[in-house]
């Protein structure tokens, strides 16, 4: 996001010179630019491009983890194929589509909650109060704990027999019997959302806080002089101004949430009801050794995430453009 913004700005004057014929200076500049970005492009091709290409290639084969060098090209059979009048393949697999739905649902709900909570936390941390520095450091603790560790920790806290959460709720008289947070399919996905919100709200708050600190103070003074209600100030002044940063933060989090694996895997294992796309792909690749089918799932994950991000970015930019006018 940030990088693409910079390129757009840099390329605008360059285009003007092209229109008027390339000077030798421009040409040598372009050459220098290519030389400078070449290492990045090569590294990217090696660490991102090659595995991606290999995965997409495997998705058209019947490769098996047991003997990875011995496979045949089978075309689209991993995606969709007709065996004796019965349609099979990933695109007809209800488990796969359930995992897609779980992931999208999880992303939408958790990122929305995190955006709202993150903004509130950032607003609080932006106000000056004693101990603000310490508070800012403390709030980052959940973000600093490795996901597997925090997931395991929550797993014990949420345990129906010896979990501290059920114990607290029972003592407060809020529930009559312990809730089986991770075992009951109705609460399991909500539990995952809750733990994710706990963990990543600090990240969201930090990005929004950075945006808040860039805001000019004079607008607020003007609003104060005019006697505008603080809530109105937030919706009319603060929110539009931090919106670009908020959208960047939401896209970062959404990218992260769409490939969620560790949290769901530790909290509910391979259960179908809560399986995310990544858990599904891993199960095919590793547990079932179906490298072909698993690669097909991975390829679809790549396409789905790309599509969703393009949609989010397009939606974000359109609204931004409308407001600056």
């Amino acid at each position, binding site marked *: 996001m940030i990088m693409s913004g910079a390129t757009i700005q840099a390329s605008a004057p360059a285009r003007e010179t092209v229109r008027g014929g390339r000077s030798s200076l421009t040409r040598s500049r372009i050459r220098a630019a290519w030389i400078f970005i070449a290492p990045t492009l090569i590294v990217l091709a090696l660490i991102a491009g090659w595995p991606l290409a290999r995965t997409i290639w495997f998705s058209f084969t019947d490769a*098996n983890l*047991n003997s990875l060098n011995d496979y045949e090209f089978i075309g689209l059979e991993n995606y969709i194929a007709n065996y004796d009048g019965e349609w099979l393949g990933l695109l007809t697999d209800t488990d796969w589509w359930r995992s897609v739905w779980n992931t999208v649902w999880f992303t939408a709900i958790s990122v929305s909650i995190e955006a709202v909570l993150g903004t509130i936390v950032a607003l609080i941390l932006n106000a000056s109060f004693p101990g603000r520095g310490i508070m800012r450091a403390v709030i980052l603790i959940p973000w600093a704990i490795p996901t597997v560790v925090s997931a395991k920790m929550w797993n014990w806290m949420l345990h129906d*027999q010896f979990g501290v959460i059920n114990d607290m709720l029972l003592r407060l008289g809020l529930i009559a019997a312990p809730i089986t947070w991770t*075992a*009951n399919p109705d609460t399991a996905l909500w539990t995952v959302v809750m733990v994710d919100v706990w963990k990543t709200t600090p990240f969201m708050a930090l990005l929004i806080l950075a945006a808040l600190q860039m805001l000019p103070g004079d607008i607020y003074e003007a609003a104060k002089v005019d006697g505008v209600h603080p809530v109105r100030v937030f919706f009319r002044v603060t929110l539009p101004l931090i919106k670009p940063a908020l959208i960047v933060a939401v896209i970062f989090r959404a990218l992260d949430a769409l490939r969620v694996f560790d949290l769901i895997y530790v909290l509910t*294992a391979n*259960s179908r009801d809560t399986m995310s796309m990544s858990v599904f792909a891993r199960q095919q690749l590793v*547990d*079932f*050794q179906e490298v072909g089918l698993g690669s097909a799932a991975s390829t679809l994950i790549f396409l789905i995430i790309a599509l969703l991000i393009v949609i989010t970015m397009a939606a974000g930019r359109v609204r931004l453009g409308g407001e600056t006018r």
Partner: protein
Amino acid sequence: MSRVIASLTLAAGLLTSASVSAVEISISCSALGKEYEICKQGVDAWAQKTGNTVKIVSTPNSATERLALYQQLLAAGAGDIDVFQIDVVWTGILADHLQDLTSNGQSVVSQHLPAMVETSRVNGKLMAMPWFADAGLLYYRKDLLDKYKRPVPQTWSDLTETARMIQEGERKEGKGDFWGYVWQGRAYEGLTTVALEWIASYNGGTIVDEKGEVTVENPKAVEALKTAAGWVGTITPEGVLNYTEEEARGVFQAGNAAFMRNWPYAWALAQGADSTIKDKVGIAPLPKGGADGRHAGTLGGQLLAVSKYSKNADAAIDLVMYLTGQEEQKRRAVQGSFNPTLVSLYGDADVAKANPFIGDLADVFANAVARPATVTGQNYNKVSTEFFNAVHQVLSKRAEPAQALNRLDRDLKRIKRSGWQ
């Protein structure tokens, strides 16, 4: 200064010369409970005897994770681990990467429990050596059965009734979180073993029979699942749907359950010095499905196999033969209550002294139900996953038993398509 260098060179020289004759073998031992400690003592004894060194590689506690790790290592042809501790259902899955032990083990393997030997063979070849045996058991609270004057349950309906009675009684006395029966209900391999016990105890078959036919859709299996689904929320906490072995043991060992289904390892821990239920526990075969049903515990246990990619295969095979031999199996049985796979040790006086219930176990192992791993081979994991997911849906009341088994039957036939291999 020069003296220091000289002595360092000398020391380095000694170290290299020692490693020329002896080799280092890596073994993956599980670290559940006392397993690591006992394994370490065993391999150290071999190392001392032969002059080699042995490195123990720790592996994840969850069996599913361990298999995934092995598969990744072996698929890459890595020789980092020479000796693998594998589960009885993995022989078929991993066979392509294992050394054929037929010529080394053929002469001794007949002394092991036949059911265990069966799990070590793939297409007639011996791919692993049996190390210890496991089977599902019923743990019960002796003191509570006495208190409520009930016998050890022989059928599942006995168990349901007794569990309900004890649970009601204990709760009336103020133990609000007391439950009748806990087991492993998480959607994982453990649920396959547990549910197979229910179905087999009703004579409902073993999901896929020896000939490879899918047999899971039958009225007995429906009845078995119906009974089990009825426990959840009544005598079994709903949380059991996410329990593995250790969570179930946690509830039982805290004194909060009357019955538990678990593997033999829980015995030593329940009888440990810090256990709240020490000397109040008994074990029995799992109940029968009905008067004409059978006691069925799923066969578990571990084998030792040698990697095809091992650089020191001879030494590795020697280690496997030592660890699965008479002397070491006896030591493990006495010190760690691991159940030997050597038939002769079931009559051994020292083993009987350490494990008073070893005689009962011999019967349990003789009648144990094997999971359909050999016949489904490479596809076992898929079969098991479909099965435990179907059972999990029944237990969480998201599907009716008949409907779930019908769908399972279709899915398994689809996996089988043109054959299991």
